[in-house]
């Protein structure tokens, strides 16, 4: 049986092409079509007739063009050189293509996903005679200043003893670094199918939050390491801005940012900005831990479909090294639309709104690749997935949002009216939820013993304000008693001084958990003192006259993460000011 199958194109309808004489080709195998050898994937086999989706623009493809398959599934190449890279949906390196292929992405241009020529300094950590199996770390390469890239035995390799292992030596990714007694030759890079999840030892239950530095998320709607979250919101509500903020400040080791069917300029923005952003811990540029997958809206739709699998496979590879990886997928709706478009061309029976019936299955498969796991080396690794959803017309009842909600446990609903008032991040505190609060409570208890109670009370105020706002709409705020107007005042303070966070303010853009908890306590201390003072008969106007409100609202951008004791002092200041006020009203 030969390793190459050759067929002939008999039908072309946009990116969906049919070819005959494909008897021995396998489902999901990669094919190369026509003179330009455009990349495609077999998505349906009907006797000898294969249905192929083409990942490149296939204008001027003709009937009778040759189809070649090497009987290999669509794969990504995993090895040193991935970080700081920008790839399209099928892992073509866009930086390399811009050098060889010009400004526009012309069909048929090709380049190696990671450099085959570049030499990396391989450092062994296993030695001759060690028994190794799939996933065992045998050495490493310091790929960037932020990331040590471990070389592992590829997952489909049989276990055996190391016969030979290279010493500390500069090697290319294709050179052999180790040989096993069963004949397997280990190189620094290997291929892995994008549609097949990489194996791991076992799943663990989550217990730590992924700290994002965004107060509304970390404090009120946290995501666990290994968790899944969705950000739905109509256009202009700030999905991408929120995703960018998370990619910048979350405390993951590796960020995989998938720009799936979105704007080209947004990817440029990331490319321009990330090299200049400095990681608060390591003082290195954030780009050194980031991988970008850019399949913008005008790039071929089939490659958009595969782009999220490419991203998640790369993420799994780093997870297997024992890293915490965060995936930002912007936007999963565009991916679902790509599914719909391809399904339509296949003339499949549509379910809701033209989406194929298997949409929920595919979404589930994708989100299930997140998780906290034990790796082959008995370390912990995790993938957290944060998917943006772009519901048409901002209507959350549409299929993609609804099905996504079934598979995620953290829901950050973006609100149009908040965005209109330029309240960013426009995460609604009424519609959002997180199921991880319980799992990670130990972490917050460690930051501050009673912060969870304080948080719950703050949340109650926001909920009460919502109801009061209904009344205010009918009768105006002046007819409410002072105790209720205090709720309005504090809720407003929470919104302006806590939930709202500027992505452009040097100080405010990122808050440590310590600052987050203290700032919330400052606001709530103000509330408690006010409440007590009101009970003694002080009018609310006197409390306003203390001038604390405006100051507290600006604390988020005046107190930096390193000076949190200022916030502790401020709590005393509040107490002093109120004590003074109360002197007048105490009998």
């Amino acid at each position, binding site marked *: 049986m030969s390793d190459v199958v050759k067929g002939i194109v008999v039908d*072309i309808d946009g990116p969906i092409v049919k070819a005959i004489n494909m008897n021995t080709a396998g489902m999901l195998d990669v094919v190369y079509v026509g003179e330009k050898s455009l990349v495609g994937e077999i998505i349906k086999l009907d006797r000898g007739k294969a249905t192929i989706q083409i990942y490149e623009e296939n204008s001027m493809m*003709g009937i*009778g063009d040759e189809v070649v398959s090497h009987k290999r599934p669509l794969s990504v190449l995993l090895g040193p050189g991935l970080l700081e890279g920008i790839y399209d949906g099928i892992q073509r390196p866009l930086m390399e293509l811009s050098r060889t292929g010009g400004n526009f992405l012309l069909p048929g241009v090709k380049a190696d996903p990671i450099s085959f020529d570049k030499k990396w300094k391989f450092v062994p950590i296993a030695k001759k005679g060690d028994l190794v199996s799939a996933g065992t770390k045998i050495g490493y390469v310091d790929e960037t200043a932020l990331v040590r890239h471990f070389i592992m035995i590829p997952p489909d390799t049989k276990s055996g003893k190391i016969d030979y292992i290279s010493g500390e030596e500069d090697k290319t990714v294709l050179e052999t670094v180790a040989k096993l007694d069963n004949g397997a030759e280990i190189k620094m890079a290997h291929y892995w199918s994008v549609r097949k999840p990489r194996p791991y030892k076992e799943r663990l239950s989550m217990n730590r939050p992924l700290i994002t530095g965004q107060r509304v998320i970390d404090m009120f709607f946290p995501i666990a390491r290994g968790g899944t979250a969705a950000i739905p919101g109509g*256009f202009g509500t700030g999905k991408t801005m929120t995703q960018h903020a998370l990619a910048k400040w979350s405390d993951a080791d590796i960020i995989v940012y998938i720009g799936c069917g979105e704007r080209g*300029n947004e990817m440029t923005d990331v490319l321009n900005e990330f090299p200049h952003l400095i990681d608060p811990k390591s003082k290195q540029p954030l780009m050194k831990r980031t991988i970008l997958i850019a399949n913008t809206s005008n790039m071929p739709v089939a490659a958009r479909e595969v782009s999220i699998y490419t991203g998640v496979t790369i993420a799994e590879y780093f997870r297997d090294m024992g890293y915490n990886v965060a995936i930002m997928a912007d936007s999963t709706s565009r991916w679902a639309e*790509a599914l719909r478009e391809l399904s339509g061309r296949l003339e499949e029976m549509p379910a809701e709104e033209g989406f194929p019936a298997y949409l929920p299955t595919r979404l589930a498969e994708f989100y299930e690749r997140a998780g906290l796991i034990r790796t082959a080396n008995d370390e912990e690794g995790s993938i957290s997935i944060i998917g943006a959803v772009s519901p048409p017309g901002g209507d959350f009842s549409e299929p993609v949002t609804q099905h996504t909600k079934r598979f995620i446990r953290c829901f950050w609903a973006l609100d149009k009216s908040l965005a*209109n008032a330029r309240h960013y991040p426009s995460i609604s505190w009424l519609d959002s939820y997180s199921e991880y609060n319980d799992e990670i409570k130990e972490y917050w208890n460690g930051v501050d013993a009673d912060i969870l109670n304080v948080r719950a009370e703050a949340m109650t105020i926001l909920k009460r304000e919502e109801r009061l706002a209904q009344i205010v709409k009918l009768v105006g705020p002046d007819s409410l008693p002072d105790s209720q107007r205090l709720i309005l005042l504090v809720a407003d303070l929470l919104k302006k001084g806590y939930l709202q966070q500027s992505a452009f303010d040097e100080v405010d853009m990122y808050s440590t958990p310590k600052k987050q908890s203290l700032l919330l306590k400052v606001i709530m201390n103000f509330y408690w003192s006010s409440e007590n003072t009101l009970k003694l008969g002080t009018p609310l106007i006197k409390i306003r006259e203390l001038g604390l409100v*405006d100051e507290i609202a600006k604390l988020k951008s005046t107190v930096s993460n390193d000076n949190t004791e200022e916030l502790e002092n401020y709590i005393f200041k509040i107490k002093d000011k109120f004590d003074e006020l109360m002197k007048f009203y105490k009998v």
Partner: protein
Amino acid sequence: MIKIESLGLKKIEGPILMLEKNADVKYDEVVRVFDEKRNSQIGKVLSVNEKSVVVQVFGNTSGLTIKDTSVEFLGIPMTIPVGRDMLGRVFNGLGEPFDGLPQIFTGDYRDVNGAALNPYIREYPRDFIQTGISVIDGLTTLIRGQKLPIFSGNGLPHNVLAAQIARQATLKNATEEFTVVFAGMGVKYDVAKYFIDNFERSGVLSNVVMYLSLADAPSVERLLTPRAALTAAEYLAYDLGMHVLVIMTDMTNYCEALREVSTTRGQIPSRKGYPGYLYSDLASLYERAGRIKNKKGSITQIPILSMPNDDITHPIPDLTGYITEGQIVLERELFQKNVYPPVAGLPSLSRLMKDGIGEGMTREDHKDVSSQLFACYAKVKEIRALASVIGEEELSDLDRKYLDFGNDFENKFLSQGYEENRTIEATLDLAWELLKTLPESELYRINNKYIQKYLHEKG
């Protein structure tokens, strides 16, 4: 180039022809369709298999007969000629002269479909374009290389606004002029005429290229019109190094034509009968805006679309908003109050604004001022809703101040004349005039040092 002519037409349905495959046919290639009198029109191959070919005709299929129609396959994708001589000319949607003059003389033909720009080679747009219109410059700043659509409704003055932008757009402290490429899809002749007259009056007509597919032209021609225009724009920008402003009106007509073809082909519809690939298709137009590293030119797009029934959640404005970098939304209520331009403050947005304004680009206080104006105007809307229930008398003093601020905002800041051209400094000073009427404690989004500088020292 081998030209193959084929008979064997099987079916005609609207603009779609089905014929037997008896020649070597390529997907997406251009065809020429001849009727019995040898009058020809252009079409392209939509799909092909071993037995049959589906062709879409960019013209009128009335009068075509099954027996005598022949189709010539040209073996090339759809192209238009490009050259410097395009400037000052008017073409139809297919790139053929529409002004009675001969076709431009050039050997350079470009594929109208273009190709996707490599995201890596894009230059992030950050040059502020001063349009002289306060609400745009101040609140939804236009950046060179941006795609910023105008969401309008029937009867609203979107054309007047677009013409004013085209006339007044200039870079701050630069003398470079914009070249305008105009794509008219399904527009009435008088609309096209309005733009021509406008360009003529301001003396820029020789710097304008127009592609017109008027309301009476075959609807499928509209599918090619914006592509032809953008191909011309890419040539002017990246080959000749010009700064190009592309005005496309009306995108709604374009989408209607797309739906028409899709329905005729029996494709599975998604929302409101529009094809599932409407998003990808629109993206293939809008994403052609931008800048390229190491190239001088740029393409800025201002697509205009009329929202059916003023509904911003309709698939056309909805999908457009997801692709473009913001939107300028026109509001009927403001229009009825006689405010020009009736730009709705809150839903309008410019995504690229953040990097194109501030010190060295516009003025240091721009970010804070615009953010504060948005916040205050949002508050005004809330108070107005409240006032309509409890009456203005019941409002607090502060609320009443906000109401006055709201009226001033609409009548002084938003409103301006068709010919009025305000500098960015004038716009920002005007904004401070308005903010002055509110208590200082309400200006919580503005950095104290700007309050000191612009409120106390200046005022």
